[in-house]
């Protein structure tokens, strides 16, 4: 029997094995490489913003210090803790999928989704407070009484960086919702859990970006 015949045989038993892969392990490894390549493009996407932030902060250190005083450090730290815990629950979800524990997989995915919701809820609260105070980016800045000029530039970076990050959290929530549906349907098994694994990688990267955003935006010295 040739290799392709073996693959066809496997395909008959494995509904999620695509015909161009030899087996599920090869399919999983290939998709993982794809995900890591995507994560690198994400790092470079945020990297451009980090470079811009770095240049503006070194040139306008006073304005960035003044700007960060308008942010609520406690809420920033709270969101950091929420996102770190969500990374832990996501790692536990991947682990549950690998060990074939469907009940715990659903539980940990739901917990991750809930923490992501809390994160965006806190962010919504922070944003509406900033809007109310007139702390808006660029030419929309309306806050009066700053000791130094250029605080609008800090808020341009604040909104673009946290906004892009927030969109990534939202996309992660959609992906986790999709995983929950598939997990409830019983799609995943110890031999097939790539979607959980890859969504986990994406989620940890979103967490990792926030790990840098928190000290850069909320703790300017």
């Amino acid at each position, binding site marked *: 029997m040739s290799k392709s015949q073996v693959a066809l045989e496997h395909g008959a038993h494995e509904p999620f094995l695509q015909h161009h892969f030899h087996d599920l392990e090869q399919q999983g*490894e290939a998709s*993982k*490489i794809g995900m*890591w*390549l995507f*994560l*690198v493009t994400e*790092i*470079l996407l945020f*990297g*451009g913003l*980090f*470079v811009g932030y*770095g*240049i503006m902060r*070194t*040139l306008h*250190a006073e304005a960035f*210090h003044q700007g960060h005083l308008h942010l609520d*450090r406690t809420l920033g*730290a709270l969101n*950091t*803790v929420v996102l*770190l*815990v969500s*990374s*832990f629950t*996501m*790692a*536990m979800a991947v*682990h549950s999928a690998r*060990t074939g524990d469907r009940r715990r997989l659903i539980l940990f995915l739901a917990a991750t989704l809930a923490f992501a919701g809390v994160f965006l809820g806190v962010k919504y609260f922070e944003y509406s407070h900033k809007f109310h105070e007139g702390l808006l980016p660029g030419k929309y800045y309306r806050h009066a009484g700053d000791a130094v000029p250029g605080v609008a530039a800090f808020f341009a970076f604040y909104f673009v960086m946290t906004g892009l990050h927030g969109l990534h959290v939202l996309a992660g929530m959609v992906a986790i919702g999709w995983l929950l549906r598939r997990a409830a349907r019983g799609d995943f098994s110890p031999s097939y859990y790539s979607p959980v694994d890859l969504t*986990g*990688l994406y989620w*940890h*990267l979103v*967490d*990792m970006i926030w*790990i*840098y955003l*928190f*000290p*850069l935006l909320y*703790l*300017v*010295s």
Partner: protein
Amino acid sequence: MSAHAESRRAVRTYALVLAGLLALTVITVAAAGVNFGSAFVNAVIALAIASLKASLVALYFMHLIHDRPMSAVIFVTGLVMLAIFLMFCFLDTLSREHVEPAVAAQIPVRAASISARMLSAS
């Protein structure tokens, strides 16, 4: 080692990593309140702690420590590209104060004359 014991060990590792990440978050907030000499040193310390946290996430939560090397090669290549990107920008902005005194003396004059021209043009 049985599958069950291995599973328990993995869970314990994840819990320890989370504890480490939370402890480092407390340290970051505390370090922001201490003056380490200059704003630059403070920023470097904050970013060093953030990098330690990111490494914990990458190595344990993202499994780079047990994974096939291909994932780490791709990830580190991306980070190297970002480092080059950052390095050349900071070579410029952080070295502006260290130009030759003779050159530095001319910069405010030229800047002032440029802004004066821009003002008169507008």
